[in-house]
C-alpha cells in the first residue's frame, strides 16, 4: 500500500502541463476578464480622451503620471473617481477598509463595486467550465461553456459562500482585530513592534483565506470528478479531501502564489509600460500587457488542474494498491512452454 501520493510540486507541474495542453481554457478566462474590464474602462477612456487629447499636459502624461493632473481631475470630476482612490488605498492600510466610505462610491467606484458581483458569477461559471473541461480527455471551448453552465447553480453557491467567508475573515481577523488593538498598538514601545502586530494580523488573514480557498477548491474539484456520488456526499467528500490532504493542497496553492508573485515581480522589473514616448510604442505596450495576463491565466488554470490532480488522481493517491515488482529473473522456458 502506497500512502505518500504525489507531491505538491508534482501536482502543480502536472497541472501546468495540462493547462498548456488546453490553452483555450486560459483564452476563455482572458476573454471573460477582458470583457468585464472593458465595462469599467469605457467611461475612464472617454474621460481621459476628453481631458487629454487636446491638452498641452498630455505630453507630460504619455509616459508618467502627473500628480497635479490626477489631483485636479479627481477634484473637478467627483462623479468620475469619487472616493474610489481612498477606498482602494484603505484596503492596503493597517486599519483596513473603512466601511463608511462604501456608500460614498460613485462613478468608477460604484461601477467597480457592481462588477465585483458580476465577477463572482463569472468566476463560478469559469471554474465549472474549467474543471469540467480538464476532466475530459478531448475537450474544447464548447466543453468549457457546457460544463460551466451545467455546474453553475452549485458553483455559484460555493463561490458566494467562499466569498462571504473571505469577507468575514477580512472583517473580523484583520479590520475588527485591528480596531480592538489600536490603542494597545499605540502603547507599544516601537514602530517595529507595531508593524509586527500588523504582520501577525495579516498572516492570520492570509492563513484563513488560504484555508477558505483550499476548502472551496477541494469541494469544487470533487464535485466535478465524482459525479457518481449524490450531491451531499460530493460536498462532504470535498470537505474531507481538504482536511485529508491540507499540506499537499496548501503546497499547490503556495506554488501558485509564488509563481504569480514571480510574474508580477518580473513585470515590475521589466516595466514595459514605462518610458515609451513614441506613438508606435502603444502597440507593444498593449501586447505585452495582454501576453502577461495570458501567461498569468495559464498558471491559474494550472493551479486548478493541480488541485484536481492532488485530490483525485487515479489511481487514488492514498491507499492505492501497488503491485509487487515482477521477479527479476523469470525463466523464459515457462513462457515458452
Amino acid at each position, binding site marked *: 500500500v502506497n500512502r505518500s501520493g504525489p507531491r505538491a510540486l508534482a501536482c502543480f507541474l502536472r497541472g501546468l502541463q495540462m493547462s498548456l495542453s488546453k490553452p483555450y481554457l486560459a483564452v476563455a478566462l482572458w476573454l471573460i476578464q477582458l470583457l468585464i474590464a472593458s465595462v469599467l474602462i469605457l467611461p475612464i477612456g472617454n474621460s481621459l480622451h476628453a481631458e487629454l487629447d487636446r491638452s498641452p499636459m498630455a505630453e507630460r502624461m504619455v509616459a508618467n503620471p502627473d500628480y497635479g493632473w490626477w489631483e485636479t481631475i479627481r477634484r473637478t470630476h467627483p462623479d468620475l473617481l469619487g472616493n474610489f482612490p481612498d477606498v482602494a488605498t484603505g484596503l492596503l492600510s493597517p486599519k483596513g477598509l473603512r466601511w463608511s466610505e462604501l456608500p460614498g462610491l460613485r462613478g468608477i467606484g460604484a461601477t*467597480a463595486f457592481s462588477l465585483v458581483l458580476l465577477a463572482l458569477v463569472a468566476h463560478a461559471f469559469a471554474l465549472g467550465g474549467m474543471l469540467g473541461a480538464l476532466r475530459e480527455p478531448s475537450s474544447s471551448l464548447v466543453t468549457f461553456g457546457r460544463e460551466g453552465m451545467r455546474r453553475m447553480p452549485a458553483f455559484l453557491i460555493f463561490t458566494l459562500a467562499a466569498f462571504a467567508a473571505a469577507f468575514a475573515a477580512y472583517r473580523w481577523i484583520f479590520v475588527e482585530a485591528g480596531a480592538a488593538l489600536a490603542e494597545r498598538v499605540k502603547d507599544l514601545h516601537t514602530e517595529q513592534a507595531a508593524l509586527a502586530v500588523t504582520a501577525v494580523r495579516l498572516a492570520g488573514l492570509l492563513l484563513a483565506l488560504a484555508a477558505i480557498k483550499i476548502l472551496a477548491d477541494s469541494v469544487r474539484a470533487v464535485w466535478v470528478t465524482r459525479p457518481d456520488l449524490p450531491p451531499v456526499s460530493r460536498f462532504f467528500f470535498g470537505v474531507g479531501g481538504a482536511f485529508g490532504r491540507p499540506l499537499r493542497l496548501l503546497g499547490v496553492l503556495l506554488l501558485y502564489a509564488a509563481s504569480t508573485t514571480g510574474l508580477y515581480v518580473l513585470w515590475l522589473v521589466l516595466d514595459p509600460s514605462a518610458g515609451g514616448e513614441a506613438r508606435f510604442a502603444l502597440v507593444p505596450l498593449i501586447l505585452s500587457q495582454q501576453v502577461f495576463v495570458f501567461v498569468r491565466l495559464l498558471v491559474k488554470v494550472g493551479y486548478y488542474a493541480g488541485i484536481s490532480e492532488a485530490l483525485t488522481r487515479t489511481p487514488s493517491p492514498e491507499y492505492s494498491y501497488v503491485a509487487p515488482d515482477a521477479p527479476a529473473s523469470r525463466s523464459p522456458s515457462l513462457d515458452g512452454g
Partner: protein
Amino acid sequence: MSPAKVRALALALLGAAAAARVRAEPLPPAVASYQITCRLDADKKIVEATEVLTWKNTTSRAAATLRLHLYLNAFRNTLSTFWRESRGEHRDGRIPESWGSIEILRMTGSDGADLLPGMRYISPDDGNPHDRTVAEVVLPRPVAPGETISVAMDFVSRLPRVSVRTGYKDDFFLVAQWFPKIGVLQERGWNCHQYHASSEFFSDFGDYDVSIDVPARFRGKVGATGRRVDERETSGGRVLYRFKQNGVHDFTWTADPDYLVIQDSFREAGLADVDLILLVQPEHESQAERYLRAARAALSGYGRILGAYPYPTLTIVDPPWGARGAGGMEYPTLVTGGTSWSAPSSVQRPEAVTVHETGHQFFYGLIASNEFEEAWLDEGFNTYMTDRVLASTYGPNHVSLDVFGLHVPLGIEIRYPLDPNRRYFEVADWDVLASASWKFRNRESYSRQIYSKTALTLATLERLMGTPAMNRALRLYADRWRFRHPTTRDFIAAVNDSTGRNWNWFFDRTFFSSGIVDYAVAEAETEPARPPRGLFEQDGRLGPTLPAALAKPRGWDSRVTVVRRGDVPMPVDVLLRFEGGHVYRSRWNGEARWKRFRVAGGPRLIEAIVDPDEKILLDADRTNNGLETRDDLRAATRWSARAVFWVQNMIDFMTVAW
C-alpha cells in the same frame, strides 16, 4: 617665508574668517521673564514647580489686572473650549481620555501680598463658563506704564498622555505649555486668548532660567529651550539640569531615557554658528543625518533671506512611536520632528517636518506674530519658505503608499510649491484666509487655508514680482519686525515699500478674499484662410466678383478665447504657439470675463496657453489652461490600456481568495 610671517598670515586669515561669521546680535529687552524650578514625578506624570514671573508694562496705560494662560487646563475635561471645538479628535486621531491640568497653589506679589483670592477664570473668546485656560488676576494696585513687577507662584502641572503637542508616553515627556504664562498687554488691552482646537500661541519676549529636577534614569537625556548651564546630582538619586535662554517667548523641555543624543553644528560664512542637538529614538538612528541635514538646510535657507538665527543652540526632538501628537511642533530653540521607521529616502518624511519646524524659529520665533489671530503669518509664511528650502535642497518629493504600515515610494513626483499645497483647492471658498484661527469652518479648512493658501499666495506673488524682489520684501519685513509682533498690514507695507509699488489689490484678492482663481482656454481653432464670399465693390459697382487681391488668401485663420472662470481676477499671460516656431505672447489684466485673440492669414496655430509660465499658482484648475488645435491620442490611449490591464489583474486578484 619665515615661520613668523607664516604665523602672522595664518592669524590674519583666521581673523578674516572669524569676521566673516556673524556674531550673535543683541537680543531683545525682556518684557516677560521667568525663573522656574521644577521637579518631574515621572510615575505620577506631574511637574511640581515654583515660578517667579517678572513682567514689565510696556504700554502707555496702567494695568489693573494680569491675565495668565493656563494652557494645560484645555485637557482638564470635555467641557473645555478645546475639547468642544475638537470634538475629541486632533492631530493624532482620537484624543485619549487622559486628563491634564495646571493648578496654581500659591500666588504672591513682589510685596508678598496674596494674589490668589483675586484670581478668576475668564473666557474672552467664547464665553464658555467651563473653560479654565485663561485666568485674570486683580492686582492690589495697577502697574504703571514702564513699571516692572514680580509675581511668585507655586503650581502643579498634570501632563496628559501625548495627543496634542504636550504630554507623556511611558517615560517620554514633552513638557510644553506647562507653566502659568502671562498674556500680551497691548494698547487696546490684554491679548490673551483661550486654548482652541485650531490655534497656537502668542507671548512676549523675555529671559528664561529654568531648573529641571528629574529621576536619575533621565541623566543626559534631557533637552530644553536654550543652553544647558548646569548638571548636578540632587538628593534621592535625582539629577538637576539648568537651562537658560534670553530673548525668547516660550520654554519647553523634554526627557526620555531612550534618547540617543547626537551633537552636531551649523557653520556657514555670513551666518552665526549654531550647536545642533539631536535627541533621536534608537529605531530612527539611521535617519539622524537626515534630521541634521534638514536642520542645517533650514538654518541656511531661512538665514540667507531673513537674517541669521541668533541663538547658540537648536535642539531637535524625535518623538517615539505612539507619541506622534508631540511631533511637528516648534518652540524657541527646540523643535519636534517625526518620522517613520520605514521612511524611504526618496520621500522627505523627516526632512520636510524638520525644515518646517526649524523655519518656525524665524516665523514665530523671531518674527513673533499672533498665532491666534493671524496664523497665516507664521504657518503660511513658513510653509512658503519650507517649500523653497526643500525644493532647492532636495528637489521634488515623492508620493508614497502606506502598505500595511510600510511606506512604499511610488515614484510619482510632488513638485514644490504647487503639488503639496493642492489640498487648498478643495476648500478654496470655505473661508476667508484672514480669519482668527478658531473661526474657520473646521480644522480641515483652517489648515488648508492657513498653510497651503498662504504658501500658494506668496509663491504667486514671488512669480509676479520676481524672486529677488520677493527676497528683498521678506528681508525688509524680517528686519523691521525681528523680536517684535507684526501684523498682516505690516507685511503688506514691507512689500509695498521694498518694491515701490502698491500691491494692496493683490492681498485684497487673496488674504482678504475667499474667491477662486481659474483661467481657461475655452476655444482654440485654426483653419486655412478662405476667400470671402458675397458682394464686393469693384469699379464703383457692387457685384459678386471677388477682387483679385482677396481671391487667394494665404495662411491660416486662428481664433482663441480665454475665459476667467473664477471670481478673482489676476493678471495673466496668454501664449499662442504657431507652426514654424512663431510665438505670440500677450499680457491680459484678467479683469473681464473673457478675451478673444484672432490671427488672420498667419501660420497654423498649434496651441494656446493661459499663464504658460505657471505664475498664478492659485489657479484652481490648470488642466483647462491650454488647448491644442490637433488631437494627440497617445496619453489617453496609453492610460486606458494601463487601466484595462490593471483591472484585469484586480479581477484576478479579487477572485483568488474564493
